[in-house]
């Protein structure tokens, strides 16, 4: 199975721009998540791949084949819709076998294949059930079974788990990932839930403001966000305004920090130093370190497994996650390992 190549795709609905010049190469046989806030164009991109929308400009290739030149119903794609879109007038088995029936496969083979797929999604024996008799989780599995019945080249899922409750959603994330690994089919999941993306994805495509912000492995995206949007959207982050002093240090909130800087930055440039709350160390007495920040505790949030402390440093509020128990109003010091910080252009 070849790579999926998206080439300079733009999509406009009337005056509104949904996607602006998106180019991507997605690896085969992997689980890819399109992650982004609502309205960022991720669903539109998925629908363009499925052929349910026509791009305003640009092309989509699956290996050598130009996918965007093929009618939607001839693309051999399996898609799971947000509403599941199960056909209410057909029973479970006939829903799964719908694509086979269209292709003129005989009834016996169809039913056999439907039973195989029911087994795959662990719902054996439900073939005769009516759609209205299924629970949300069961509908979700049937929708996947139906999409997989034709052994598609691409498996597309549009917010597939958003209709399920939290517990079930987490279980399904693991299950979907295992299923994908077993079948080895190129799979794209659209989601706005970063935890879902981190759990399942081999590759995450972070989308925002109608374009691709960053593409990479989940941990790479988490630890090395390329820009402020990604750093802000993925996990929580502290942004400290800073000034480039020389090629390897910045000044922020009255202290100097030695940090590896991108070469493109000029001395004197305004930047943001971003640091995750769990990477900040909190001290109740002044630590013997050259680079540190002094502040006062404003608020403490005890979450049971962790404690989040909000510290005010020179008029800036920083969040720290750890397990120290201090009191509001205490004077504290903060420090961090420069390797954990990321310098972002503003």
């Amino acid at each position, binding site marked *: 199975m070849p790579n999926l190549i998206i080439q300079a795709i733009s999509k406009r609905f009337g005056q509104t721009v949904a996607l602006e010049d998106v180019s991507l190469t997605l690896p085969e046989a992997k689980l890819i998540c399109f992650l982004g806030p609502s309205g960022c164009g991720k669903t539109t991109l998925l629908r363009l791949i*499925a*052929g*349910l929308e026509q791009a305003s400009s640009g092309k989509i290739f699956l290996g050598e084949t130009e996918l965007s030149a093929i*009618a*939607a*119903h*001839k*693309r*051999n*794609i*399996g*898609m799971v*819709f*947000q*509403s599941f*879109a*199960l*056909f*209410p*007038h057909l029973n479970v088995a006939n829903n799964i076998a*719908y*694509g086979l029936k*269209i*292709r003129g496969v005989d009834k016996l083979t169809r039913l056999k294949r439907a039973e195989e797929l029911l087994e795959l999604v662990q719902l054996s024996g439900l073939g005769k059930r009516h759609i209205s008799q299924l629970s949300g989780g069961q509908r979700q599995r049937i929708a996947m079974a*139906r*999409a997989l019945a*034709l052994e598609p080249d691409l498996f*597309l899922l549009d917010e597939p788990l958003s209709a399920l409750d939290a517990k079930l959603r987490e279980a399904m994330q693991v299950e979907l990932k295992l299923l994908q690994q077993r079948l080895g089919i190129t799979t794209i999941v659209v989601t706005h839930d970063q935890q879902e993306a981190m759990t399942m994805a081999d590759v995450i495509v972070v989308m925002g403001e109608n374009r691709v912000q960053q593409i990479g492995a989940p941990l790479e995206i988490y630890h090395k966000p390329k820009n402020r949007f990604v750093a802000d959207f993925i996990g929580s982050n502290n942004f400290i305004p800073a000034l480039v002093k020389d090629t390897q240090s910045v000044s922020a909130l009255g202290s100097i920090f030695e940090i590896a800087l991108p070469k493109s930055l000029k001395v004197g440039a305004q930047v943001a130093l971003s640091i995750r709350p769990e990477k900040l160390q909190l001290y109740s007495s002044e630590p013997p370190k050259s680079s540190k920040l002094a502040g006062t505790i404003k608020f403490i949030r005890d979450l049971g497994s962790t404690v989040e402390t909000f510290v005010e440093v020179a008029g800036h509020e920083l969040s720290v996650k750890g397990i120290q128990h201090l009191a509001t109003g205490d004077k504290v010091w903060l420090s961090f390992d420069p390797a954990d910080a990321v310098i972002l252009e503003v």
Partner: protein
Amino acid sequence: MNHPSYGKPKNRWPYFLLTYPAIMILLLFFVPLCIMFALSFFKRIQSAFFEPAFVFENYVRAFSTFFLQRIGVSLWVAAVAAFICLLIAFPFTFFLSRLRRSRQVPYLVLLISILSLSEVIIAFSWSLLLSKTSGISNLLVALKLLDAPVSWAPGFVAMLSALVYISLPLAIIVLYPSLSRLDVSLTEAATTLGASPIVSFFNVVLPNVRQALLTTFILVFIFVLGSYLIPQVLGRPEHWTLPVHITDQALLKSNMPLAAALAMLLLIASAGLSLLTLRLGRSQL
């Protein structure tokens, strides 16, 4: 339903509120139907309208060969018109409901404007459309498809065209809710599974709105059954529907009891069909 504090009333105020609607509806709609029912057993007298009695002769006449044939023609005309109407309305409404909301509005305005247009006006405009002097045959002559303009009215086809025309907006508006509520992703799912638009129309859209289609058919059927002016203007006397004969008996022949008996038959047929649509609507839930 979305009821805030729905329940039995705690005081008499709601009943007081109901007095006026009750009087109006009962007096102006229910009582007349009762009078009509009584009237259908009355005797006709020459000098006045009617005389109280309890005879079955009106129903005997209503079931005579002549009126049975009239009823047969009415039912036939209504069935044919409703069928053609549905054949056009179903795909049209489907396409309409798939347009963007803002683009649907002008078509909806056009449709309800035509729907509200007097049957007189529609009969008149169709008589013009099919006439020799101002009709489409002139257009066909101009396009060299016809040698000389002709008149196509009155006739069965002329009447049918106008009946389909007048009931088409009704059919579209009745079908519109169920088609526009049909989940778009159903047809999209069919597409990703390899169904061409035509295939998905027949094996996804059609089976999911079968009930709505039947309901629409019955409503249009009743609507055409009640048409009064179009058959007179565009049809020949042998095509006249029951309402024409009822009016004829009531006003021109001054035979109210017979008119009432015929109206009762029409009432029973339409009410029966209407209740059937209600039943269908309920079983759909």
